[in-house]
């Protein structure tokens, strides 16, 4: 097992290297000069030339690329061109914000998605099945932008139950330690703030969970239907086992592998692709950080941001692969 994990981690190197190279080339192929964007519309040609020189933008691309790689291998992710801060110190609060939201959303998605899928499969062709699958279809095709604004309108403006956006009540801010606010508030012993942070998570969490919930529900249903037709389920039923036990104990475990794969992929997507949710809900996360960096042609932030997101994506998939062996002991990696 350790051998397998080691091998997978080694495989990471060419994947990430290839990715840095691609990202590096693509962002330099798009027009737009970082020096110009940083200095703004008012800038003079002299100022731009001076800044380009300072930022090393006049070096040939391969020199810039190897400088960048050299930095990464020495643990230096570079400095943001715009804020002039080291990315390594700047990026953590954004990552933590995204992590917290993505995990919250995935918990919602897994609880609702898996259960809806199971019940739909159990009562195939019932009204619940039809309703759940129609809702899932709406869910996968829902524009998040619209959903987010509607949520704000209904639950925040009309009903006043939940805060509209942001991570915290700014009039009583959380003092960041780990930047995971759920943990930080507990470390400070501020349970009232903890509840407040949860309230702030709910609306963006639901918006972000919509698509994964729908995908998980459909995948669980399909996978369960297949398993429910297999012999061991019939045997279990014939032995007189309760249907609930058959479904949740025997069938679910066998149906879980493809579901787990989808959960892993979706978690990875949420980490990097939550830009819309983060924008609507003013969430200071990594998606918006990278997106804004593209607008400013902040090359180091784009490169290092994407590198970290890609790294996490690959790691999550590795964890999923390892989890397979936990769920199904027939799967062995040698």
């Amino acid at each position: 097992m350790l051998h397998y994990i080691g091998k997978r981690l080694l495989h990471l190197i060419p994947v990430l290297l290839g990715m840095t190279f691609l990202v590096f080339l693509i962002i330099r192929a798009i027009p737009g000069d970082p020096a110009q964007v940083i200095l703004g519309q008012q800038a003079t040609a002299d100022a731009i030339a001076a800044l380009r020189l300072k930022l090393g933008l006049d070096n040939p691309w391969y020199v810039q690329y190897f400088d960048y790689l050299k930095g990464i291998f020495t643990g230096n992710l570079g400095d943001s061109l715009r804020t002039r801060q080291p990315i390594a110190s700047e990026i953590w609060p954004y990552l933590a914000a995204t992590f917290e939201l993505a995990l919250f959303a995935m918990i919602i998605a897994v609880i609702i998605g898996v259960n809806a899928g199971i019940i739909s499969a159990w009562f195939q062709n019932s009204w619940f099945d039809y309703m759940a699958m129609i809702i899932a279809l709406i869910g996968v095709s829902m524009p998040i932008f619209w959903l987010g604004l509607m949520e704000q309108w209904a639950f925040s403006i009309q009903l006043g139950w939940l805060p509209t956006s942001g991570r915290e009540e700014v009039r009583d801010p959380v003092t960041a330690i780990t930047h995971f606010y759920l943990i930080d508030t507990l470390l400070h012993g501020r349970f009232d703030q903890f509840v407040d942070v949860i309230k702030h998570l709910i609306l963006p969490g639901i918006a972000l969970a919509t698509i994964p919930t729908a995908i998980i529900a459909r995948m669980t249903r399909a996978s369960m239907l297949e398993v429910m037709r297999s012999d061991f389920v019939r045997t279990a039923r014939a032995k007189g086992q309760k249907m609930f036990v058959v479904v949740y104990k025997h069938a679910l475990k066998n149906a879980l592998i493809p579901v787990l794969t989808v959960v892993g992929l979706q978690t990875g997507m949420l980490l990097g692709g939550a830009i819309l949710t983060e924008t609507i809900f003013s969430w200071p996360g990594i998606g918006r950080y990278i997106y804004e960096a593209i607008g400013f042609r902040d090359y180091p932030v784009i490169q290092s941001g994407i590198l970290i997101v890609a790294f996490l994506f690959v790691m999550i998939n590795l964890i999923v692969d390892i989890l397979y062996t936990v769920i199904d002991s027939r799967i062995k990696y040698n």
Partner: protein
Amino acid sequence: MKKGKVYSLSLVMLLMMALFLAACGADDGDTSTADPSTDSSATNTESDTTDNSSSSTPQVLVFGRGADSVSLDPGTVTDGESFKVTQNLFETLLNFGEQDTTINPGLAKEWEVSEDGLTYTFQLQEGVTFHDGTDFNAEAVIKNVNRWKGGKEEDFYYFNSMFKAEGEDIIKDVTAEGDHTVVFTLSRPQAPFLKNLAMSPFGIASPTAFEAAGDSFGDQPVGTGPFKFVDWKRNDSITIEKFAEYWQEGLPKLDKVIFRSIPDNSARLNELMAGSIDLADGINPSDGKTVEGNSELQLIERPSMNIGYLGLTNTRAPFDNKLVRQAVNYAIDKQAIVDAFFEGRAEVAANPMPSSISGYNDAISPYPYDPEKAKALLAEAGYDGKEIELWAMPVPRPYMPDGAKVAEVIQKNLEDVGIPSKIVTFEWATYLEKAKNGEADAFMLGWTGDNGDADNFIYTLLDKDNIGSNNYAYYSNDEVHELLIKAQSETDENVRNDLYKKAQEIIHEDAPWVPLAHSTPLLAAKAGVQDFKPHPTGSDKLTNVSMK
């Protein structure tokens, strides 16, 4: 064993679910008010809270805006969102008027100009201290100016663009005469010198602080302003609080201001309606009516100091022909655009700068909407009917709230007079880069003034010196150039205004653009926000604001 795992997993899920539901049901009572009890390490220790407006409303303002600041060192930044905050942390030697760009005392209470326009003597306010306790005096001013002068051009961008001409420093020397008098000696007269000094980038910083902090001064700014810096959560919020030893008695009225970045315009309005922010910048013109119809809110207009225009690249066919450019000016129904997309909250533009600016030529009126005249001019110009590219702005700006829709109207107007066009658009940085390279035929763009001076509009946008920079239209006219250069060092206000008026006449005739509109940007606030006076430059002082 495995059974146990499945069960404990479901138990955890159940607990999470319970927590989730509990959170939904909890009421607001215990969370919304600040609770200074439990936590000593919290940053919000407000000991100096002196309630000056007998009411019990907390004097805290949450200001929602579109983006975060880049840095809080005013000398080094160029973006409006940074100045919005630094304007309240720092003060300049001179101030703009409350809602205009007239010159008023600031950290300097009086000033004198020598007859040749080369020596400026400022008497400084006494008894002013920086937030870190450093005294504000002549030496502090000199250290600030030397910091700007000695810094690299790319670091102190605004200083170099305002106080440098042809590579030469306009501020030759700054000296102290006693503790509270500074003398600026210029190398050449500069008409807008005082206006330039009043701009936000020239806020005076504590020398002790910037010498100690070096490059990280932007994260720990120290000025003399009514508020001092508390905390910055990037892309999220910036908190500043009342400076108890502020030199102006009884000010500021607010105890605390929190700037929140809320990128989406609709979400920002939602926040305001839900009551979690008190003031919102960047309200869409189309949402103006919603705000006006809500008795708990007030709509606030920012005085206009901008221009939205359709640039016609003067070096590209068919716009290298003046007659074609004039024809396009006749062809476009500017009033219809203002009515439909600015909801009437804009004025049709006649000149490249708004009428509030000294030197505006009000004898010029906009080209009337006259398709027949346009057709005649096109025929006279021998226009071949070749399709042009019409560039639509990809981002909303106060001077152009909806580029794509305005482009459609312009396309229709052009088609009516026989100019076929194709609408194209690019991501914003790409758009600017390509337009600057002269790759556009006709493109939308605009400008918001920095200091309310005519030079900052006409010279910046239309002088041949600025081709490859802000003269995106590649307009070049030597006569205009001569007038504008002369005006830069002309210190007699009337003579100077005449030079600009003449330049506007020539520009009107040459028609390098179609000037479209001067818009009135909108903000919205809770009804209880009092005395908020938005400034035309976009950098608002919150010294007098209070909450009722």
